[in-house]
């Protein structure tokens, strides 16, 4: 499971799940906090579509945490002020970076959560699509 996919699911997961996954790692491995969860900024770089040049859209508030699992670094970073979530994310990231015994099980649970999120998003999308204008109906109404 690649990091982009994994972190996107985790960022949308409830804190309870993050805590459980993090505890699953901590129960069997010593985790050392390298950098306590703290606030900072990420500057968003964007490509505009008129001339395809890059510019800075603005900054986003983030919380970041770094941990060590053995010699392996784990980074937890997410938008907003969420100290606990940043810590859990860092522990989970370290688990994947170090490739420990539990990694496979973690991946399975994250995958499951991903399916749940996609289902919810899919239903929401359908609801948004109900606001799509049906021009054929509109034309008929005009003709009538």
């Amino acid at each position, binding site marked *: 499971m*690649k*990091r*982009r*996919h994994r*972190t*996107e699911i985790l*960022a949308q997961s409830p804190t309870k799940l993050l805590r459980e996954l993090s505890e699953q790692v901590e129960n069997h491995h010593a985790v050392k906090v390298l950098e306590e969860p703290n*606030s*900072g*900024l*990420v*500057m*968003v*770089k*964007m*490509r*505009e*579509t*008129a*001339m*395809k*040049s*890059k*510019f*800075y*859209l*603005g*900054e*986003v*508030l*983030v919380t*970041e945490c770094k941990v060590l699992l053995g010699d392996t*670094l784990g*980074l937890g*970073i*997410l*938008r*907003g*002020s969420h100290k606990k979530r940043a810590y859990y994310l860092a522990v989970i*990231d370290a688990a994947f970076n170090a490739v420990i015994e539990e990694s496979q099980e973690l991946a399975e649970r994250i995958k499951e959560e991903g399916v749940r999120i*996609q*289902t919810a*998003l*899919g*239903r*929401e*999308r*359908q*609801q*948004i*699509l109900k*606001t*799509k*204008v049906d*021009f054929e109906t509109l034309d008929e109404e005009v003709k009538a």
Partner: protein
Amino acid sequence: MAYVAVKGGQEAIGESLKRLEYERLKKGRTIETRAIESGLQGLIDQVMSEASLYDEALAALAIKQAQGNPEEVVFLLRAFRSTLPRKYYSRTVESHEMALTRRISASFKDIPGGQILGASPDYSHRLIDFDLKREEADPFIPKRWLKAYLKEIEENEVWETPLKYPKVMDYLRREGLMATYEADETEPEDVTKEALKFPSKRSQRLQILTRGQTGAVTALGYASLRGYGSVHPTVGELRVGELPITIDPPFSEETGEEEAYYIGSIRVTEVESIIPRAVKTPSGDYEEELDLGYGICYGQNETKAIAMSILDRCLEEPGEAPTHDEEFVLYHVDSVEATGFISHLKLPHYVTFQSKLDSVRKTKKGGETQ
């Protein structure tokens, strides 16, 4: 000497701050930041955009503190931002990655994917809804509505494909009706790090416009439409949706999309305006060509994004009107700079004004004796 007067005001200032707090509390009710977050999205979007800092919870707190005064809110957010380290720069966000919640075109009826109205006050009657008072007396009214709507969502089929569509303008480009550009990989300038110099770079112009004060950007865009500029656009495409933000791993050699950290998404409004322009051909004739103006801002703020797209185009081409003058536009649209400079007029100018008075008196006296 001016400082003597200020020092004497210390107690008065203390009491003045107490009055300010009293004004906030005197009606016996305070507003919860969570209530601001759920009920004042429009204001939150506006101040996040003008502050150039995306965080709804922080914006809500600043709104509470500033009692809803947008210029004060933006000042608070900018000041807070300056205390934080900038940890990372995001990977370049491409707008076709936007998960759409609204997307319309004023130029074409049939666009691939269709016109998705999403949430907008555009189609409402804009009559004050006095029924809203009822939900204050009966909190179950909104709860019931929400429950029913969520049930409707829950019963939907799952629409698998993300709502990510190609840009409408790409079709015009393929037809050769619009100039095409290669991706420009030049790293952008940052107006928060280096002072603006003229002539400005495109990246500086876009950054200043997107963080510009909503009213100022709108007013100048409107002025251009009314004739103080030569740009009259048609909205090719207006999108509201979520942009994913990712960063490269800071501690490893691995780069690339798949190894990036996803940090969350941000809601933005993005506009591409089509602007016709007469171009002289080698034979000396004039030919109509289509150009694009680009506008984007944090949150859902469609008027600002459209106005920005007008000003973007104005600043790309020479013109006599003030909206084509980059110094005029870029130096005057920032909320903190504009309100700060105007507000400074309230500060004590006792000494300078006294000397001005003296010189007026002297001239008057001199005039009388002559």
